């Protein structure tokens, strides 16, 4: 990081985000970028003349919601422009985007210790997909026209780590506002990275489709550019692609070839005018966002909290457990370690298991009241995962309650001491740690029900006498 600061590394991201709309941005074709090629297209999407775009208004809502979650100003008037370029993935010969008047501007996203400013978020139609096979290229226009948000940051990011933090938090927020499916494998989120060092020209690396590749590309570029500077070579404006097989970036086009897109307002689409009350309504209905939730739950164990926040559905499950118990840390712990473990072990999703929030809540309460041990708690959780149970009933029927009766504990201690005279001898000779051996034996014979602290207390008295 220090090296980056010395180099004056500046990184700006352009993130392309597919919106969770049922149909495409300007046509009624289903929004499904995968599936049988060219199945989800209308005359407009394949570039027939005589067709007209019709705006998917739901996309406006999703974009506004995302913008508000990222602290943007929602612009009441926004305008669609045509961005002209010739390429087989663009059947109309232009992409419909918002070049001069985007729907959202001037937001920010905080990562640990820093604020990354967001220049704008605009709406545009996606391009189609080309698949190269040998000397042939195949065109699939399922993706052509899908509703996209393009989010552009200011060059505030200064390292690959910061970029990864930014993107992870962004994806989390998108899940919370539910405006994107966030499946990177399906290409639902793609990155372009702009990097410059020492106030030089910026290099654009396009079409990175995973966070891993984005990180690698950034690191490679920083090294490549600093080496060029050391050799005295000039860095000129350029667009590059990342070759993940070889871990290098390669030039796509140089400054002279940088395209002039001849932007022109698309006159088939009137300007979008959003009413203040509509924007306000969306703002009122925003869910609580990760940053706020972290603040509100800062009493929880940090690791457990991260797991919960990073998984919105797990967090809402956690909230349901809290309807049955006040034991927040205990509940978080069970949910994030024990139950997570069961999910992985049994390859069963939480929602498909038999356990309920009430089960977990009751277990937590019993532990708090010292009526069962932690170990018993784990046993109950395991049982509840696999079968429908009434926790209190099971505790009663299987006699799982903690043994706290002093008489019984005393007898257990004495019995253990009788069974293990050698260990008693060693304890009395100074090996005080052996007390745990006795505690362990007693827990074993009592099936974990003996109150370990009480046992220890009584043992100390007996062993020292």
């Amino acid at each position, binding site marked *: 990081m220090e090296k980056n600061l010395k180099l004056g590394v500046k990184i700006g991201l352009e993130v392309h985000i597919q919106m969770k709309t049922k149909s495409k941005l300007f046509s009624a074709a289903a929004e499904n970028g995968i599936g049988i090629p060219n199945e989800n297209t209308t005359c407009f999407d394949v570039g027939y003349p005589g067709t007209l775009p019709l*705006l998917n208004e739901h996309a406006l809502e999703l974009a506004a919601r995302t913008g508000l979650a990222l602290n943007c100003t929602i612009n009441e008037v926004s305008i669609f422009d045509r961005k002209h370029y010739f390429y087989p993935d663009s059947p109309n*010969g232009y992409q419909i985007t918002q070049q001069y008047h985007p729907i959202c501007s001037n937001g920010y996203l905080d990562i640990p210790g820093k604020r990354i400013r967001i220049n704008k978020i605009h709406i545009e139609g996606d391009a189609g997909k080309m698949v190269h096979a040998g000397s042939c290229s195949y*065109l699939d226009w399922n993706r052509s026209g899908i509703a996209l948000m393009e989010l552009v940051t200011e060059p505030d990011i200064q390292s690959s780590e910061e970029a990864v933090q930014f993107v992870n938090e962004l994806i989390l927020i998108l899940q919370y506002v539910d405006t994107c499916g966030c499946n990177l494998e399906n290409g639902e989120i793609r990155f372009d990275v702009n990097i410059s060092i020492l106030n030089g020209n910026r290099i654009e690396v396009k079409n990175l489709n995973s966070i891993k590749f984005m990180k690698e590309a950034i690191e490679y570029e920083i090294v490549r550019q600093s080496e060029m500077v050391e050799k005295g070579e000039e860095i000129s404006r350029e667009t590059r692609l990342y070759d993940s097989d070889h871990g290098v970036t390669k030039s796509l086009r140089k400054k002279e070839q940088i395209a002039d897109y*001849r*932007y*022109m307002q698309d*006159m*088939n689409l009137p300007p979008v005018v959003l009413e203040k009350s509509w924007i306000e309504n969306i703002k009122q209905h925003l869910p609580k966002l990760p940053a706020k939730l972290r603040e509100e739950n800062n009493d929880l164990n940090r690791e457990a909290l991260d797991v919960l926040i990073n998984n919105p559905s797990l967090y809402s499950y956690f909230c349901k457990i809290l309807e049955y118990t006040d034991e927040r840390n205990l509940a978080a712990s069970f949910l994030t370690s024990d139950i997570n473990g069961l999910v992985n072990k049994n390859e069963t999703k939480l929602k498909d298991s038999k356990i309920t929030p009430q089960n977990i809540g009751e277990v937590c309460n019993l532990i708090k009241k010292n009526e069962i041990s932690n170990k018993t708690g784990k046993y109950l959780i395991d049982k509840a995962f696999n079968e429908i149970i009434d926790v209190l009933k099971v505790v009663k029927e299987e006699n799982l309650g903690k043994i706290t009766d002093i008489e019984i504990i005393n007898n257990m201690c004495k019995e253990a001491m009788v069974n293990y005279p050698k260990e008693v001898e060693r304890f009395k000779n100074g090996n005080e740690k052996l007390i745990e051996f006795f505690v362990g034996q007693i827990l074993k014979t009592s099936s974990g029900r003996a109150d370990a602290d009480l046992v220890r207390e009584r043992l100390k008295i007996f062993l020292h006498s």
Partner: protein
Amino acid sequence: MEAKKLLETGEISSKDLILACKKNAEKYKDLNMILTDRYDEALKDAGPKSIPGALKDVFFLKGTKTTAGSKILKDFNSPFDADLTVRLRDNCDSVFVAKTCTDEFTMGSFGKTNFTGPTKSPWKNNNGEHFSPGGSSSGSSAILAAGGCLYSTGTDTGGSIREPAAWTGLVGGKFSYGAMPRYGIISLVVNFDSPGYFTYTVEDLEYLFNKTVGISNHDYTTIDYKPAPHTKKKIALIKEFSPSHEVQIAIDETKKVLEDAGYEFIEVSIPLIAITIELYYVFVCSSAASELSKFDGIFYGDRSKEYVGNEEIYNKCRTECFGPEVKRRILIGNYLMYSANVDDYYWHALRIQQLLWESFEKVFQDVDCILCPTAELPMTVEETLSNPDPVKEYKCDLYTTFVNLMGFCGINVPIKLAGCGSPVGIQLVSKPQGEHILFHIGKIVDKHFDFCRRILWKKI
């Protein structure tokens, strides 16, 4: 309308009507007005009272090709029916007898850039040479003037209905921008294109308009047409227009008829009207470059058999299949839209357009209608082919382009024959949604001069 009456009473059948039209089309075959002949299909499609009409070959009609007069779309099948095709068929009980020739992608004023060759008007000069029928709706004007149908459709982006109407002695209506839906019509300038009709009388035009006007769910740019009230019995004459002698006579005679009907005339000055041609062509070229980017031969359209790599597919297809006028306008358009130039041309044109609007707003505070020429006298087809001076050709649009720039409505009413043997018409223009004002005034003029009955029909 007469035909409708006869069809109602059963004096003639639609089949007779269609056959008569077919006979005329056959007679005038060498005018090259038709791209797709549908007379036989129309005979099958026709109900007992159907009216035969012709569609300019930019209107989609499922089951026919729609070529826009261009080689690149010569095999392009209409994917669906245009909104207007549906309305004409359903609301006007129409059948379609032909898809007519058009200047390539509706760019042209003479009908000479159509990919199967130039179209000729049935009108000839005193030497027996055919006049040009005007453009870009050349085939639609020729076929109606030849008696091959009872009405035809066109699109008017800079004068492409009114000018051919003037040159072939027909009523031609360019309706307010947004009054007619553009869905299913191949577009040139998205914010100027106005679908409209050619008819024999103003009464016919009014009938078709009333039956087909209205909002479409497919087209955001359509408006909910509400007729502007006709309150001022004043008509404006534009000082800056000074047409040739015979056209001026037609204007003067029309003026007299309207004065007798109680209208007062005032002269207005609109200095900016002198650069409406330049303004118009900035928009047309930019828009053409944009709208025509979709024609690359990749999914549909003529694709060259041999090419290497992406760039060659585009280069070869577009080079081989676009005509010179189209190429010219695309190149100019791209030049104008480059980031270095766009402010000086495109954005500047937008600012001037706004000023022009303000001038006209003032005019329409005092009058409901403007009377002006539609076009100069036509050239012969030979003259148009031997005079390749694009700028000179563009200047022929002087009287019509301001109507498109402002989104106004305008109609050509045929008046008389000029000394050289060609028809002469005049233009009536009104503000947006002023169609009923035009029909009202137009009918007064039409009834008086009765060009259709007195001259045109006698010729056919």
